[in-house]
């Protein structure tokens, strides 16, 4: 028995059991106590409330929503809103971060200074303040009646109005998928070794794939077009209101801008670090082989920098995804706000918070899993570094 306790594996297993056991005991005790307290207040615990209708409205939804819909439908709406806002925010933040990060590594003094100033400012102001700042600016834009128009876009205090194709929502969703495929397919086709096929041939294949996907998108839009309407619907003033086009509500615009600007400042630092980690030796070797600076960038600096950046970028994305919970500050019905409203209206605090945690866990774990796959696929092969 004593000798068994000396065995390292046995010890580790025992510690593990103790650890998990004590946590389970604490959680169990918590649940029991909470149930008793809730029962005293006359609230029944359980998930039956999910099937009751909510009786309140959401101000932003990609799915049809009425106050008669049940809670589970609202949770779904919340998750989709969070994912939508998160994706838009992450994409914009990545674009901003890449531009600023490249500026910070450029040889141009002014570009470096601007990049540095940007990072210093936006990284050091708390996100919540930036959210309020952008919200104040957007809600103080001119009213629809005095809005300025530029290229069919209208900036007003009631939201940003943009031209939008006159198509049904299913057709629009399908077209969106096709456009995404036009971006992803070429990259996926190019994932194989650079020299697996002749470069020219690979280009042709990638180009053909992108063209085919875009053609699909066009056809879908043409077929799904609402009868007797122009292909593009431009927003225009009608009486006191704006009609037509797509309205991006101020709350959504605020959050997307705030996440893009704030997240961009963090991503800029990751981009800069990634490029700094690329050895000057590899760059010099590439130059000495006669490769042009652009080729050196696409063939050597970028692929190596990406490998250094991705793991940190994945963390940043998970983190920014959680930043969508700022929705509650300006009244955007993201997942977190839906949960908060649910708690207010139904009193099912524990259940709602459980669903919130499970939802975010699922979102972020999937995000992390995707990044892990990408990381594995492109990791530098071989690690018995010698010499």
């Amino acid at each position, binding site marked *: 028995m004593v000798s068994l306790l000396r065995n390292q594996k046995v010890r580790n297993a025992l510690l593990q059991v103790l650890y998990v056991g004590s946590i389970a005991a604490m959680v169990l005790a918590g649940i029991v106590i909470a149930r008793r307290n809730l029962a005293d207040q006359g609230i029944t615990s359980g998930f039956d409330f999910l099937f009751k209708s909510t009786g309140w409205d959401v101000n932003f939804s990609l799915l049809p929503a009425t106050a008669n819909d049940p809670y589970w439908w609202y949770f779904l709406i919340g998750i989709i809103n969070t994912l939508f806002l998160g994706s838009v925010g992450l994409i914009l933040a990545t674009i901003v971060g890449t531009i600023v990060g490249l500026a910070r590594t450029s040889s141009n003094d002014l570009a470096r200074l601007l990049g540095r100033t940007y990072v210093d400012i936006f990284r050091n102001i708390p996100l919540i303040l930036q959210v309020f700042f952008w919200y104040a600016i957007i809600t103080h834009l001119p009213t629809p009646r005095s809005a300025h128009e530029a290229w069919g876009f209208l900036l007003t205090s009631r939201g940003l109005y943009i031209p939008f194709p006159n198509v049904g929502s299913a057709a629009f969703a399908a077209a969106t998928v096709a456009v995404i495929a036009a971006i992803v397919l070429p990259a996926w086709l190019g994932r194989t070794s*650079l*020299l697996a096929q002749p*470069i020219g041939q690979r280009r042709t294949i990638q180009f053909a794939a992108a063209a085919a996907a875009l053609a699909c998108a066009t056809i879908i839009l043409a077929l799904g077009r609402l009868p007797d309407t122009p292909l593009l619907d431009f927003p225009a003033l009608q009486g006191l209101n704006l009609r037509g086009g797509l309205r991006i509500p101020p709350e959504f615009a605020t959050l997307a801008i705030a996440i893009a600007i704030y997240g961009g400042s963090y991503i800029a630092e990751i981009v800069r670090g990634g490029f700094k980690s690329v050895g000057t030796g*590899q760059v*010099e070797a590439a130059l*000495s*082989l*006669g*490769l042009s600076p652009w080729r050196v960038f696409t063939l050597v600096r970028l692929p190596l920098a990406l490998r250094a950046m991705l793991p940190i970028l994945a963390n940043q994305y998970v983190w920014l995804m959680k930043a969508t919970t700022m929705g509650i500050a300006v009244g955007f019905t993201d997942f977190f706000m839906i949960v908060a409203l649910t708690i207010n209206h139904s009193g099912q605090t524990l259940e709602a918070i459980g669903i919130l945690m499970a939802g975010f866990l699922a979102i972020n774990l999937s995000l992390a899993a995707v990044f892990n796959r990408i990381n594995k696929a492109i990791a530098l092969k071989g690690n018995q570094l010698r*010499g």
Partner: protein
Amino acid sequence: MISTNSTGEPALRIENLDKYYGTFQALRGINLSVQRGEKIVVCGPSGSGKSTMIRCINRLEQHNGGRIAVLGTELNDDVGNIDEIRREVGMVFQHFNLFPHMTVLENCMISPMIVRKQPRAQAEATARHYLEKVRIPEQAMKYPSQLSGGQQQRVAIARALCMQPQIMLFDEPTSALDPEMVSEVLDVMVTLASEGMTMICVTHEMGFARRVADRVLFMDGGEILEEAPPDEFFTSSRNERTRQFVSQVLGH
């Protein structure tokens, strides 16, 4: 293998070369002329400007005064000239500088395919030919980090040769290697020399210098202090600094 140009233009001509890093002068009035097929060994104490000099030859460093002409092409701000010179001048570095995300074969094929616009099959054949030549054909599909230092450096030599350059620059190619790997790299360099390649090697391998060098240059303080055939350089140098240096590297 190396076409001798009838114009009689030397492979490399350097005149009054100056190089500054800020206010620090790293090269002072360097003059050097290298004929086609000539092998030059450059030695000198650390910080004497050896690397700076050979890095000026393919514009990894930009010189501030004097002239450099490579294979008759003047090295100036003309990007076309720089590209032309880099195509014809191969370089091997102290720390190999292989591309870690590409296989050995890809390392060797990338530049011929993109810069020389060679078809894939031809680039692969050339790459395999030179990998054979540096005696590691079996490593073609491995990644650099799976090779020993000596093997990596031989890949780096093959990679440079795949561009079929007319001049090869070596910057201390063996000084980052474990002692037992030095000779495998030097052997490759000796073979290359015997085939008539124009070579400029910064190295402290004096055995190599004796065997292949036509001339040995001694640099100190950014200047070429002495320039002599190896026999003369090692035995009867007139310069006190040179004699002191030679006795140090030969371990007397």
